[in-house]
């Protein structure tokens, strides 16, 4: 995995070439400014009419620089989406099930692709087994308004994909102790 600083160099290089045809002919942000911008963005935009301008003032940059940098992070894939992050529990999606499966390694990609085709599955990941305590290697997340609906959806998946003999477990959440955006920024300061 590349370090933050080499990533930043990479970003800056891309940024430089893109700038030539970019309408924002902005100066590049320094490593410290990038770091600070990231920390501020991780906490969310301020709720003012010109949020990017307000952020730009905090990092001693121009609004155009801030906008160009965010666009750049999106193009680069560091930012996978930019927008509202909502708390699903508060919207009534209280039945949140993590369904874990023990799928033979040679079949896991194929089963994961089938799960991913189900609209009720919002996330699907492969993770390592930790034997003897944890035999499961495929995780999928289902958010629903009601426990019985989610259980019925899981039954339907088992039926549809003939997974009756597959070892699995369903872990409903019953309390959210913390739900916030990732804070990568803080520790990375020394890398800047």
């Amino acid at each position, binding site marked *: *995995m590349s*370090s*933050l600083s080499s*990533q930043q160099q990479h970003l800056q290089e891309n940024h430089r070439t893109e700038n030539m045809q970019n309408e924002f002919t902005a100066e590049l942000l320094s490593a410290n400014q990038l770091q600070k911008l990231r920390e501020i*963005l*991780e*906490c*969310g*935009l301020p*709720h003012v009419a*010109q949020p*990017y*301008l307000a952020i730009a003032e905090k990092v001693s940059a121009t*609004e155009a620089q801030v*906008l160009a940098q965010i666009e750049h*992070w999106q193009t*680069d*894939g*560091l*930012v*996978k*989406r*930019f*927008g*509202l*992050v*909502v*708390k699903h529990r*508060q*919207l*009534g*999606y209280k039945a949140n099930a*993590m369904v874990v499966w023990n799928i033979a390694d040679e079949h896991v990609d194929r089963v*994961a692709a089938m*799960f*991913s085709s189900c609209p009720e599955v*919002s*996330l*699907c*990941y492969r*993770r390592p087994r*930790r034997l003897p*305590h*944890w035999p499961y290697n495929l*995780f*999928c997340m289902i*958010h629903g308004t*009601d426990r019985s609906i989610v259980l019925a959806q899981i039954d339907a998946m088992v039926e549809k994909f003939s997974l009756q003999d597959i070892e699995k477990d369903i*872990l409903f959440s*019953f309390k959210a*102790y*913390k*739900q*916030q*955006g*990732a*804070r*990568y920024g803080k*520790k990375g300061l020394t*890398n800047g």
Partner: protein
Amino acid sequence: MMTTLLTLLEQNIINQYQKGFPLCSQPYKVIADELNSTEEEVLSAILKLDDAGILSRIGPVFNHKKAGSSTLAALAVPEESLDEIAEIVNQFEQVNHNYAREHSYNLWFVVTASDDEALAQVIEQIEQLTGYQVLVLPMEASYHIDLAFNINFSQHQLGGH
């Protein structure tokens, strides 16, 4: 239990701007134009969603793989000490999600850090402070991520507390 009723404007904002939030000088004005509203109304709708605890934030969701090091982790703790242990885990700013789940592994959280070494340190500190061994389950492959799913508002009543 209080019931929060959302206006059509608020529902449209939630369903249409979980990704592709406008990157321009006056984003709320752009949203207002697209939703036949005004900048003031959009801003006050956002503030209301924030006050109601529905909005976590507006901003980037980083790609974990590119942004640093992260892992899902779990602890198996006695039910009576779950709240207490959860508080210890929550003290770490590197922990960004933390849920109680129905299983012998009953506390599930996500740890993110700038690199693998920093991540390992946090896990070790959590083990020392809680006295329990952490089940560490880093992502090996991501098949599907759709966190910006469409919320069907006609299906159910919205509940807050």
